[in-house]
Each structure stands twice: as C-alpha cells, then as structure tokens.
C-alpha cells in the first residue's frame, strides 16, 4: 500500500492504559460469587498406570466439593492427550483434580487421596529408547511413525511404532557421533554423492540442542462456570477464535455452547497456541458441581510440567563445501525428542529451514521422532528452524541480502571481525551472524467490521492479545482503507460472546500476514458498500465515489454522505449492506458473529481470497558479539543487532520489540536455559525459573538494537508478514557462531554453552563425559 497514514506508524495500542494501571484482567483476575478452587494431583512417576483411586477420606473433609478424574472426561481418540489420565506418561502429569472452598482445603484433600499406581518402564533420553533392548516410553512403542495419508487431525495422523537400532549402528556413539539407524522419515533432492565428490572440504559434525520450557510469565490458569447450558470460561490463551472449538472438544460439547473470555494473556510463545488442554479441568469440575464457578490457578511448578517445552534434538550433519564456500551437499540426520505426546513436527521444519538457510546444491534429510517420558512439547517460538540453524520451497519473497548488508554496516562487522579471536588477558571476543527463517503467514481467514451511525468503526478481532499487539494492528489496515481517524476505531477483542470472525491461530508468525489480508478484504467490502449506497442515493456509479474526511463523496470535492448518514442508510437498505446477507464462503463462526452485528450499520465482512504464489517466509538476521572468559568459562553478550526482512512494517515499535524479545529467547537457549533430568528415576531437576534461568535485564547489553528492511512482500495486498519466530533462531545462531569465532566450535557442539562446558573443553582438551546425553 502506498501513501499510508497508519501503516508503518507507531501508535498507542488501546489496551495499554488498562495494563499500566493494573486494571487489565488476565484469567486469574476474575472472581465470581461462590467460586471454588481446584488443585491437581500429579503423577510422581515418569510412567505408570492408575490401578485404583480412593478419595473417600478427601471427599469426607468439610469444604471439599468434588473430584474429577480421567473417567469424567470425553475420549478424544487414540493417542490424543487429555487433561487428566489413568496412564501418566511423565512425572508431573495430572491424574485428578479436587475442588474445594479454598485452595488450602483442596491441597489438603489431594494429600488425603490414595492413588495406587503400577510402575511401568520409562525412558528420558531418546537414544536410550533406540538402543537394542532399550525401554519404550509407551507400552505401544517408542517412536511416532510418518503421518498416515488421509489421517484426520494433527494428533491422529501418525501411528506409534517400535524401532530399535542395532549395536553396530550405535558404535559411532562411543566417539560422540550421533548414531544413524533406521529413520522414520526422509527426503532428498540433487545428487548427494556428486556433491560430496566435488567438495573441497567435507565435515561430519554432531550437535546436541537441549530442551527448555516455554514458561510464559502468566501460567495457564483458568476460571469457568456454567449458565443456562452454556460454558463461560476465562482462560489464558494465545488465540481466541481458534481456542473456542478446542475447548468445546475437550469438554465434549458444541462450540455454540462455549463463551470464551481472554482479553489479556501473559505470553505464550507457542505453549498456549489453541489454548491449553488443562483449562477444561475447571470447566468439567464446574459442570459436575451444577455450574458453580471453579478457579484453577496453575503454579509455576505445575506450569513446568504441563506448560510445554521445546523439542530437543540431536543432529548429525555431513556437509561438503566448494572452494568458494558454496555448499555442494548436505546430509542431515535428526533424532528428535518428541516428549510424551505430540506428534511434533519440529524435525521437519528444521530440515526445511536448513535447506532454505544453506541452499545446498544437493541435500538429504532423515529423521526419527522419539517418544520419551518427559513432559509434552509444543511448538516453541521458532520450532525447528532454531534447532537447525525440505525440499526447496518457492518463497513469496526474500530480501536476506538487503538485510545482511544493512546489518553488516550498522553492526560495524568488519571492524569487529578484525579483533575477534585475539586473546586479551583471559578474555577473547568473537562475532557471529545467523539467519532465522520461519514460515510466516497463513491465508483464507475472515474479517468482520461495522461502521455505525455513531460515526465509529468497530473492528472485531478474533486473535489473541498475548503481547504482540497484532490483535490491534490488524485494525490499522481497516482504518487505512476506510480513511477512518484512528480515534474513531474501536477494536473489539477477547470475548467470543461479542462475536469474532474466524481468525488464524496466534502462533508461528501467522497473524500479521493472515489478518492484514483478511481485514484488507473486509475493509474493501465495506468501502464498496459505502460507494454503492452513495451511488444509489446520489446517482452515478459506485466507482465515481471515494472516501475522505469520514465521508463517501464524488471524486474531487463533489457531494456525498457522511459516514453517519451512510450507516443509517445501510440499516434502512438492509440485505448485504447491514449484514443481514453475508457471503457464502465465510466460516460458520463468522456467520454467527455477523448475525450478532446485523442491522447495526454498514458491515464489512469477507474471506481472504487473495491469491498467493509461493510459501511465505520471514527472516531475521542476528549479529552478535560475545566475550568468553577462558579462565571461568563465562560467556558475556557484548552487543546484538537483529535486522528483519518481514515485509511491510505495520507497527514499528512492536516489530522491534518482537525482534529484540525473540532474539533474547534464542540467546537464552544458546547460553543458559535447559531442562535437566535424573535419568535413573526419570524425574526433572530443573523445575523452576531458578534452575533454568531466563535472561535477566543484566544478561543483555545496556542497549540492544533492531531494524527492518521494510520491503513489501509482493504476494499479499498489504505487503506484511509475521515476525514472532525468526528472531529466535537468529539470536541463538548468532551467539553460538560468535562463541565459535572466539574459542572454536570444538569447545561445545551442544547448546546451551554453559561455563562448565567451556572449561571442560579448554582445560581437559576433551568434551563432556557423555557428549550425546540429553537433558544434562
């Protein structure tokens, strides 16, 4: 879009004052008359079967109102995770919940419940599960097979299988190289043998990437009650429209029976994508107790178990380089630790990302996704591509070269490169650069807005408000198309009772792309209706009319109608003009929402049917300088810059916050955050912030920079793409490369690069004792 007034400009999002005064209400901030509290009883073992539950003593306690077990929840089909279980697959998995008048009573009741558990074999390290005779995470197998053709739903598409590798295949493991037995999936393109044959240098390297929890600052608390057969649920979720059908499925009811309220969410990072399955616990407890409100606060420790984590992966790469540095062949093998549920697809995205970042002339990708008795994973901001850092995808656009050039200059790369690697006292500096790619835009969602006689434009927003501001940003597009003063735009969000259009999941850098397209369509639909109304009343054809100064008027300075007059006329005209008739192709949720708003003014309602040629990807280039203290092993981040190639920038301040914040998430993966398990008992040791510490304000440089090239994507009308994920891989990769630049890559081959790892290599001249061990 040319000559924009709002797009590309900073503004104050309309929710900010509520946030800054403490009035913004997150899920745990709601109260209701007679509200009960729920507490969870979770599995103390990594894998077991519930033989018997004796809750009689608990239920006899004064103040205890009810108990919910897996038997009270609908069956969601084979292999699908439910909120409660009779066969826990990880220590910390919820078995039952108790509701009581207060939390202390509920907790005391939980203590009084006798659960008889039968221990089952378990495994926390994916390689142990693949060893000959190694334990399986489930009684039905140890790996997810490739998706079955025609499978239904993300969770039903893969079978659980058993695959063991041979002792000979494990021989490599003794030398710290990832063994490569039978994979479950693979693809290849080009002539790999020729590629390696022509290479001037061939490397064979193994890299281990550890897992860590998402840990949004707000845990997945929820409060629910029932009224007149309807479930009202206050939940912490990243998405609104897309969470509604999930809640309905988890509770075994129709989507029309659910009202979901989620106006503010304290972050998610992929862990609350379509909501959290645990939110059905207070809902089902409430149902059992005749609709009385039930609040379930999730503690930080609960969150650690049920709150999702990134998949950890071990990768082995054989890579051939031509003399000029061009990659002639890339042979990648990934062992993914899928955790206890899934199936996860990060290993696939990692392969795809490797092909995009490195552009090898020939490439083979092989992978196996192993089930372990560790908490469930979900996509964590930049799933897969971060760990990689497919088949050749045709991209809608990529301006990586422009971003690299821009960053190289701003970062004074050459100047820094000149002194990197030189030791001064105990300190060595290093610089690194990395490209973080991520698919960044879905298509085909709906838009809904009304221009009403009060002269205001009401834009219904069905995505979540998790801190990215895209929930508001998408309305800027409507304001732009309709020449509407921003003060007169009301964004309606966070409550399905108010009617929201079918919107994309607020995950995976999808929203800005998907919903700017949808709102461009919706706003243009509204614009067309305004032009038609004017032409009907004032003569001429709709094309003779344009919009400005809150009027639809003849081009130039001719006669016309004010928006208020046009809104009144739309209501008189009815039909499509005021939303009594809506397009056939919109989603049923949008139709329901439109029905709520029919007759209120001129309605803009449309599905995004704009064509798109290619796959949409965003990129962020990270530039980092680190200092390694070779005596203490400490790595300090000295400076960082992230430069985005994310299409047209909608909201610059938010974009830069996304780049800087996302980079920090990746940098923490490179430097400090990891899960640690006791492999003997299958229990997690890193249960809280304290043990797997996120970056603090002192771990980043006093200023941190970000920028974007701002070149529009030609395959979407607004030109914008998403940005949530790409900076994560950029930050992670840039910091790892910078450490390698300072002290050499042989020092780690594992992330995070903690002080002990650095010292072990530098002082002992050999890497850690068990270089392939996961979760240490």
């Amino acid at each position, binding site marked *: 879009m040319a000559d924009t007034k709002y797009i590309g400009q900073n503004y104050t999002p309309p929710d900010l004052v509520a946030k800054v005064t403490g*009035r913004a209400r997150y899920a745990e901030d709601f109260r209701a008359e007679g509200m009960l509290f729920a507490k969870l009883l979770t599995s103390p073992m990594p894998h077991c079967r519930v033989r018997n539950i004796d809750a009689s003593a608990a239920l006899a306690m004064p103040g205890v109102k009810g108990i919910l077990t897996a038997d009270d929840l609908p069956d969601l089909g084979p292999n699908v995770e439910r909120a409660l279980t009779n066969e826990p697959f990880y220590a910390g998995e919820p078995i039952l919940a108790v509701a009581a008048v207060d939390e202390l009573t509920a907790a005391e009741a939980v203590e009084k419940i006798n659960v008889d558990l039968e221990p089952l074999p378990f495994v926390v390290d994916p390689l142990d599960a693949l060893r000959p005779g190694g334990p399986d995470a489930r009684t039905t197998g140890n790996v997810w097979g490739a998706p079955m053709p025609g499978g239904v739903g993300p969770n039903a598409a893969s079978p659980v299988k058993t695959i063991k590798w041979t002792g000979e295949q494990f021989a490599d493991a003794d030398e710290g190289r990832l063994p490569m037995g039978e994979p479950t999936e693979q693809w290849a393109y080009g002539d790999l043998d020729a590629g390696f044959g022509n290479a001037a240098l061939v490397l064979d390297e193994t890299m281990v990437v550890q897992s860590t929890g998402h840990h949004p600052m707000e845990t997945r608390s929820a409060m629910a009650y029932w009224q007149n057969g309807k479930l009202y649920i206050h939940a912490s979720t990243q998405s609104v429209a897309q969470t509604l059908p999930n809640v309905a499925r988890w509770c075994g009811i129709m989507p029309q029976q659910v009202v979901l309220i989620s106006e503010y969410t304290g972050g998610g990072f992929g862990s609350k994508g379509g909501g959290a399955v645990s939110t059905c616990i207070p809902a089902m407890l409430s149902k059992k107790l005749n609709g009385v409100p039930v609040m379930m*606060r999730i503690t930080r420790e609960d969150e650690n178990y049920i709150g999702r984590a990134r998949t950890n992966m071990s990768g082995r790469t054989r890579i051939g380089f031509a003399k000029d540095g061009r990659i002639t062949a890339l042979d990648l093998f990934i062992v993914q630790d899928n955790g206890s549920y899934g199936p996860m697809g990060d290993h696939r995205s990692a392969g795809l990302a490797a092909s995009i970042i490195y552009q090898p002339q020939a490439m083979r990708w092989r992978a196996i996704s192993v089930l372990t008795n560790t908490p469930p994973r979900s996509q964590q901001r930049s799933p897969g591509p971060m760990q990689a850092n497919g088949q050749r995808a045709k991209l809608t656009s990529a301006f990586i070269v422009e971003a690299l050039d821009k960053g190289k200059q701003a970062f004074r790369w050459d100047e820094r490169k000149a002194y990197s690697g030189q030791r001064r006292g105990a300190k060595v500096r290093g610089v690194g650069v990395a490209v973080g790619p991520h698919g960044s835009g879905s298509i085909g969602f709906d838009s809904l807005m009304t221009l009403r006689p009060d002269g205001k434009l009401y834009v219904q927003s069905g995505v979540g408000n998790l801190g990215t501001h895209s929930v508001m940003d998408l309305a800027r597009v409507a304001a732009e198309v309709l020449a509407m003063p921003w003060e007169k735009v009301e964004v309606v969000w966070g409550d399905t009772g108010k009617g929201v259009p079918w919107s994309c999941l607020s995950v995976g850098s999808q929203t800005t792309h998907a919903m700017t397209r949808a709102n461009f369509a919706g706003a243009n639909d509204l614009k067309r209706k305004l032009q038609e109304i004017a032409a009907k009343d004032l003569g001429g054809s709709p094309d003779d009319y344009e919009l400005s100064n809150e009027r639809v008027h003849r081009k130039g300075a001719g006669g016309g109608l004010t928006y208020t007059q046009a809104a009144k006329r739309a209501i008189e005209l009815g039909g499509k003009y005021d939303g009594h008739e809506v397009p056939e192709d919109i989603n049923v949720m949008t139709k329901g929402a439109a029905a709520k708003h029919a007759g209120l003014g001129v309605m803009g309602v449309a599905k995004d049917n704009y064509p798109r040629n290619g796959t949409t990807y965003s990129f962020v280039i990270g530039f980092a300088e680190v200092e390694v203290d070779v005596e203490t092993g400490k790595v300090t981040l000295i400076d960082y810059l992230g430069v985005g190639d994310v299409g047209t920038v909608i909201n610059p301040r938010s974009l830069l916050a996304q780049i800087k914040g996302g980079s920090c998430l990746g940098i923490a993966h490179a430097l400090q955050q990891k899960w640690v398990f006791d492999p003997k008992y299958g229990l997690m040791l890193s249960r809280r912030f304290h043990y797997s510490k996120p970056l603090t*304000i002192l771990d980043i440089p006093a200023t941190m920079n970000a920028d974007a090239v701002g070149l529009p994507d030609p395959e979407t009308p607004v030109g914008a793409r998403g940005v949530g994920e790409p900076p994560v891989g950029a930050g992670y990769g840039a910091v790892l490369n910078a450490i390698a630049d300072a002290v050499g890559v042989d020092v780690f081959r594992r992330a995070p690069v903690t002080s002990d790892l650095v010292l072990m290599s530098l002082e002992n001249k050999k890497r850690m004792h068990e270089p392939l061990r996961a979760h240490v």
Partner: protein
Amino acid sequence: MDQPDSPRSGVTRRAFIKGVIASGAVASSAAYLFRAGGEIFGQTSAPGSVERLITLNVNGQMRRVDVMKQETLAMTLRYKLGLTGTKIGCDRAECGACTVLIDDVPHYSCSVLTHTVRGRKVQTIEGLANGDQLHPVQQAIVDEQGFQCAFCMPGFTMAAVGFLKTNPNPTRQQLAHGISGNLCRCQDYDKILTAFMRGAEYMRRSS
C-alpha cells in the same frame, strides 16, 4: 531489593514455615495457597497466636481484612482486597511479578507475610495513578509502549518507582541493576529500560 527475610520484617516466611513444619500443622507448601477467611474452615487461633482481623494501609486507605497467619501479602491483595493488578508469576521470589512497595521499598509480595506489614505503608500498581492522571513512570510506559504482554509490568513498574525514589537520576546501567530482580519473558528489556529512563526524566521534571 530488601530481603523478605530480613529481621526487621518481624515474622519471616522462612521462620514461619519452619515453625509450622515443626508443629506438624500443615504441609510447608500450604503457605503458598489461598485460604478463605471463612469461620468453619479457617484455623482457629491458638492462644498467643496472631490476630486474624487486622488493618492494613494499602494505597493510602485503611483496609480491615481477615488474614490467616500463613497468608502472603500477594494473596491478601489479590483475593481479599480485590487488587488484582499485582501479579503472581512464580510465588517463590524468583520473578518479581508480585513486587509492591512497602514503606517505599520494593518487596516481593509473594514472599512477605501479610501480618508483617501491619503499620506499614503498602503501595500497589493501582495506587500509582492520581485519578485519571497517570504517574510519570506509567505515562512513560505508555509513551514508549514499554511492555508486550505486560504480565510483568506491574511488578517491574513498582520496582522502578521504588528504585527511582532512591536514585532519581540513574544511568541506564544503574537502573538495570536497580530492577534486575524482575523477569520479563517477552524480554524486550531494552525497551523496558528506555521506558523507565523516560519515566525517571518525567519524575524529575514533575518534582
């Protein structure tokens, strides 16, 4: 940041929990949980134990409130006084989301027993603005769009306001140190610092 277990706060949570464990009354974890003030289910006061009905000075108002002896200030604020602006991120002194000012000093309210703040001045995020007039630090956050999901914002803001009372003209580095007891998971710490540096400037101008 002042240590919640510092001697001047009287009954400390650690000492308190130890005592409770020794007496075998409740599990240690129970100290973190919400207990309603109801007659039937509440513990009856043993002779010599603390009074239940106390008066607190919160945001300049005297509030009568029924408080269990093991109750933390975060729970009293959120569940008894309706002040849900104070957030709980970890409930164990790891994140700072629950930071409030007690006699102008930032404290993790999840780790302060409510009984220990009797006679002291508690200020929460709700008490910063003067009617519709935002506090200069709040105004700075709005002007710089300082946070993302903002779940950490109330705690961060109280920590910053408290720090700026002791050092109204800090460098970026000093300010970072002053608020380093707070975590943000959205993690644009750079913008948070920029917002608070502006807040410091607004405060200097307004005083």
